[in-house]
């Protein structure tokens, strides 16, 4: 174990890793600060660069972008009242009020400290729980793995978006895309117009990175183009001396910190839920705590640091929480971790117990990069607290063409030296971008497509293996307790949202 830790440390304790993580952290903060650009999009856009780097360095870069983007979203939320992405929705209320009171510096500094606490706290949970959960998968055969993939897919499909059918349809669409390519057991080419396409790079299926870049990067450009460009809003200058909240004040908020940390980590670990749910729960919990504090704490909703701290601890706690099922089971906690899993899989690393048993040094390297990503996020955000708000004055007109080209070059670069494959990847990214735009426009969630794409292969392989091992008996999935548990969870995650929606409609 000690050797594995030292080997993991050696993978990241080099100038190249630290440099790339610094770049990732700054890029993440900037992307997070730009309204409309999400952490998932940032991670997808940086994927092609991560492939050119050693595995631990590449994952470190992506984690730095992820943590930076989640935290950076608080900048426009506090200064302008516009969240950079849904992770900072609950920060708007108190953050903007603090800015109006002339305490923007303290709100921004408080958000950074809170994000750091959330990130480190959830990292501890990740280190403690992911090996234990991964060990549980030792009891999983093909049948259990099939139902595990099913439950991951169904949960994310049912909780993302306002209409459960849209989520399920998108999950199925993602799986359909995953089935394109070569049959893993018979090597039959499964593409439409096979006589033509079987001689192209499409015969091996859709390139995952190009698909993700199209769905998250290119589609966003088209989505932002729908409406008139709005001029950037003016941002007031920030008092630098007030940035760090007093330690006494932070210590007095220990109850809020602990509850937000718990909420963020647990919600993050549930596939499909994500930070936008956690921040509201943390905000509500903080409201209750401040109301019952007998005046010792400032009330949430009145422009208090407490109201900024709670959602910011929670949204960064989601980052570590979401990595628990991702690393231990291969089931991502949210869309950004789905992209991270995709990056790992393309590098030949399969999450789950096998990873913990055979490549513990890489697991330690991932834990350590998560620690460094949080330190860099806090460091660079505090250092640039006066500079980052300036990004808000960059007009959309200049940013959108850059995102489009970055998406294209990213999709192309995955192919490395193979130019023909690169050109096909460009086509895939563009088509997926247009599909992604049409889906976003009609309010279809994108996250289930990613899950379908990632879990589709795992589902099919294990399904066929399980049925084959059972001699063609399809009822094998109903004979094992773990399978029954997962099937029950899948049914519940579909039925409960439908019932609660009906109840709401009746009320």
């Amino acid at each position, binding site marked *: 174990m000690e050797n594995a830790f030292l080997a993991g440390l050696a993978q990241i304790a080099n100038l190249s890793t630290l440099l790339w993580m610094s770049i990732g952290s700054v890029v993440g903060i900037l992307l997070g600060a730009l309204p409309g650009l999400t952490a998932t999009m940032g991670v997808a856009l940086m994927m092609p660069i991560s492939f050119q780097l050693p595995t631990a360095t590449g994952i470190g870069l992506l984690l730095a972008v992820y943590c930076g983007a989640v935290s950076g979203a608080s900048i426009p939320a506090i200064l302008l009242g516009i969240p950079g992405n849904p992770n900072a929705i609950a920060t708007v209320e108190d953050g903007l009020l603090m800015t109006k009171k002339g305490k923007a510096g303290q709100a921004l500094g408080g958000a950074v400290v809170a994000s750091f606490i959330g990130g480190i706290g959830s990292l501890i949970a990740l280190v403690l729980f992911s090996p234990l959960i991964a060990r549980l998968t030792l009891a999983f055969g093909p049948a259990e793995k099939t139902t595990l993939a099913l439950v991951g897919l169904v949960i994310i499909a049912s909780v993302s978006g306002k209409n459960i059918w849209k989520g399920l349809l998108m999950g*199925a669409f993602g799986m359909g895309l995953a089935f394109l390519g070569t049959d893993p*057991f018979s090597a*039959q080419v499964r593409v439409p117009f096979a006589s033509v396409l079987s001689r192209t790079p499409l015969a091996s299926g859709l390139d995952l990175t190009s698909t993700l870049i199209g769905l998250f990067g290119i589609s966003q450009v088209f989505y932002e183009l729908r409406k008139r460009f709005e001029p950037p809003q003016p941002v007031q200058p920030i008092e630098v001396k007030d940035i760090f909240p007093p330690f006494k004040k932070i210590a007095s908020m220990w109850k809020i910190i602990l509850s937000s940390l718990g909420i963020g980590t647990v919600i993050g670990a549930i596939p499909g839920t994500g930070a936008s749910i956690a921040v509201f729960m943390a905000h509500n919990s903080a409201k209750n705590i401040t109301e019952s504090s007998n005046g010792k704490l400032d009330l949430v909703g009145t422009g208090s640091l407490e109201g900024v701290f709670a959602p910011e601890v929670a949204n960064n706690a989601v980052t570590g929480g979401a990595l628990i099922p991702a690393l231990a089971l291969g089931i991502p906690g949210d869309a950004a971790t789905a992209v991270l899993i995709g990056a790992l899989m393309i590098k030949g690393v399969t999450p789950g117990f096998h990873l913990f048993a055979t490549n513990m040094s890489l697991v330690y390297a991932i834990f350590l990069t998560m620690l460094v990503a949080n330190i860099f996020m806090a460091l660079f955000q505090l250092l640039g607290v006066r500079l980052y708000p300036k990004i808000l004055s960059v007009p959309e007109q200049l940013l959108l063409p850059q995102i489009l080209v970055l998406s294209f070059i990213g999709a192309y670069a995955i192919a490395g030296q*193979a130019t023909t494959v690169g050109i096909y990847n460009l086509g895939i990214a563009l088509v997926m971008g247009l599909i992604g735009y049409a889906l976003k426009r009609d*309010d279809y969630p994108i996250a289930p497509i990613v899950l379908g794409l990632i879990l589709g292969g795992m589902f099919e392989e294990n399904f066929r293996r399980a049925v084959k091992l059972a001699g063609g008996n*399809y009822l094998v999935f109903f004979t094992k307790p773990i399978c029954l548990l997962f099937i029950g969870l899948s049914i519940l995650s579909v039925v409960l949202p439908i019932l609660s929606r009906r109840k709401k409609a009746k009320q």
Partner: protein
Amino acid sequence: MILSVLYFIYVVSLGSSRMIGDEIGGDPGGMLLPLVLSIFMFIASTILFITDRADDAYRSGGVQKSQRGLFILTIVVSVLYVALMRHVGFIVTTNILLVTLTFAYMREGVKREDLALWGGGVVGSLALLIAIYTIGRRVTRYLLLASRQGVIPKFLGSNGMTFGITLVLVGILFALVYIAGKKLLSRHDAAAPIHSLFQAGFIAMVSTELLYLIFRQLFLVELVRGIISW
């Protein structure tokens, strides 16, 4: 709904394939899951077709009338970019895409009176970019060759160093272009379209060269050369 039917037809037309070595049977075959999926997609899309009309209020809406020109332009330019990159090359296509879109977005529409200006901007930025790119390539080649021949220390010919030195050099050249451009344009009204064009052209040049240096020189990605074959 139509897509799910098409998917169903496609799955059936593919036929089922069995696992290699499945002589004793038991493998459900490669068609079963896609078939189940297509049926599920048909059912889900039918339910949505019936029920989703009530949810129309949630929809974020299509493209605003004023943005239609820009939206179509972006699609057309993107399709041309993908189609032409292989033949024309990375440098030229990327620069044209960036100049065109940045300029059109800054002018908030596709305007007939801007066409001549846009054409001049594309040619101008392309000429300048190719000149700077050529200088950068020559410096890189010199560093690689000289380090191999022992004329300069070997570390100067490494990937990172050639990237760094070329980056600094082209950075200085771009700074000079920027200063010269600003001086030339100082007599024009600040709101004149020529300012938008200069900004678009300059950003396009810097972005294209920077992407080239990062992906080609640092990560050794084979970016298509096309007509710029040197």
